[in-house]
């Protein structure tokens, strides 16, 4: 008899768990967003605004990285995957095998500014010089018109979307020199450059401050306007991926980010609006 009771209790708990979890999945006004830490501040701030406008909606936003986001989209644990890079062919193949059709929407642009210490007399670099500095071919500031000090090259870690864009647009697929520092966040790069007069680093335009000097690249200053117009070359689009064209709540949310109001938030958190 007691055994039966125990069994009954177990079944009750189990059914609660299943009902609850399937309920959570079915609830139409819940949206889960996972992915790129670069896109995270945009997703978070716009989600807050969106929930304010639609009090019944619940949006949960998580970071983890572009790869994590797309993996979550494949597993079905999120409805929007943030990515700071286009989806890779390998990931598309995995999606296809699981019957998922990843569709990306560009929601903002991210310009990458090259920064140095304010005391540095160098004001301008060409993309080639920049590449040579990071590849180790130019190792003294005097070779690009500065003091006779060795250049400390600071890069982002190789897994960050920022590095990926830098590698593609500046290094053209080449390697960074081995003694380049690989730091784990935009903030860490900015902090390191503030403290090191001979350092050069790169950060998202949103992380520029008066403590560092951003360099003119190929004659173009990194600003919102030059990024949107395409004149400034070191810039990338930021994506939100959905399974198929966005629909329902996901569509409403993405439309909100693309609206004038949403794009204002994009700018406020340090990125470049696309409109």
């Amino acid at each position, binding site marked *: 008899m007691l055994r039966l009771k125990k069994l009954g209790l177990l079944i009750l708990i189990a059914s609660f768990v299943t009902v609850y979890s399937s309920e959570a999945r079915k609830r139409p006004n819940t949206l889960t967003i996972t992915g790129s830490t670069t896109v995270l501040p945009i997703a978070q701030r716009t989600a807050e605004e969106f929930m304010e406008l639609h009090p019944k909606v619940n949006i949960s936003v998580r970071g983890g*990285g572009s*790869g994590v986001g797309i*993996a979550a989209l494949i597993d079905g644990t999120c409805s929007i995957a943030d990515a700071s890079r286009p989806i890779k062919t390998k990931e598309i193949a995995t999606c296809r095998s699981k019957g998922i059709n990843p569709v990306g929407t560009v929601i903002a642009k991210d310009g990458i500014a090259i920064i140095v210490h304010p005391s540095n007399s160098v004001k301008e670099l060409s993309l080639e010089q920049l590449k040579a500095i990071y590849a180790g071919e130019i190792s003294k500031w005097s070779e690009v018109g500065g003091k006779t000090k060795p250049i400390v090259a600071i890069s982002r870690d190789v*897994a960050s979307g920022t590095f990926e864009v830098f590698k593609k647009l500046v290094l053209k697929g080449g390697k960074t020199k081995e*003694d380049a*520092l*690989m730091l784990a966040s935009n903030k860490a790069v900015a902090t*390191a450059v503030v403290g*090191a007069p001979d*350092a050069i680093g790169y950060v998202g335009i949103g992380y520029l401050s008066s403590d560092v000097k951003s360099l003119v690249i190929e004659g173009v200053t990194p600003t919102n306007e030059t990024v949107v117009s395409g004149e400034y070359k070191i810039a990338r689009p930021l994506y939100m991926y959905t399974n198929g064209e966005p629909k329902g709540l996901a569509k409403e949310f993405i439309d909100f980010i693309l609206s004038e109001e949403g794009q204002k938030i994009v700018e406020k958190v340090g990125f470049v609006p696309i409109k």
Partner: protein
Amino acid sequence: MKKNFIERLLPIFALLTWVFLFGIMLILFIEGTPIFKSVPIFRFIFGRHWYPVHEPPEFGILPLICGSLMVTVGALIIAIPFGLGCAIYLSEIANRAVREVVKPFIEMLAGVPSVVYGFFGMVLLAPMIQKIFHLSIGLTAFTASVILGVMALPTVASIAEDAISSVPKALREASFALGANQWETITRVVVPAAKSGIFAAIILGIGRAIGETMTVLMIAGCCAVITPNFFKPVRPMTATIAAEMGEAPMGSMHYHALFAIGLVLFLITIGLSLIAERFKER
């Protein structure tokens, strides 16, 4: 009935720790070993270049192993003398009032979150070291060693203190009775008697330093180079995993390589724990 139920439940909890340990080991093996299909294990461990996202990628973790070893050795150079000094002072020399004030503070040091240490190292210690040693950048193996040393210190101090204070009082009394002074008693009798416990303390301190992630990620500078120079940035294994896991596409070579680093690290720390257990038992 109720007691019976709970009593039956308890071994399950105890078994769970085994389940977790073996689960972790299993996942590390399953996810880590595929890399050895494309990169031979010898080239993986002794390869000198780590370019995981380059085309074609290079997966050599020797610079990462060296980075981990360097900061760990550096940390030990700081943690062992300070930790042991602390332990000897607290258990042999300090009076009870001092001990009761100081010991909780050492334990509090162990409770400070590692990101706080990292932050402290990044904004305070790194610029200081840069200035003092006229370096071009303050994020170096030395900076990481100093902070890791402070972090490993409470582990070393409190375990060594336990070992030293559990040396029987009779040994000390016998030593005094033979005419030895306090210093002689400490160095010739008490410390040798507590030797195995002190070794265990040091080995657990190594484990603490080698496994630390957030701090080294923030302050070691993370250059994957092999250098004997402590004033150059280095890149420990843990920092590599933490920095690169988020964006490595699932199932890629890079992903498996990171798990394989985890496996190497896991085997090192498991080995250290086993050695520590051995010493503790004696």
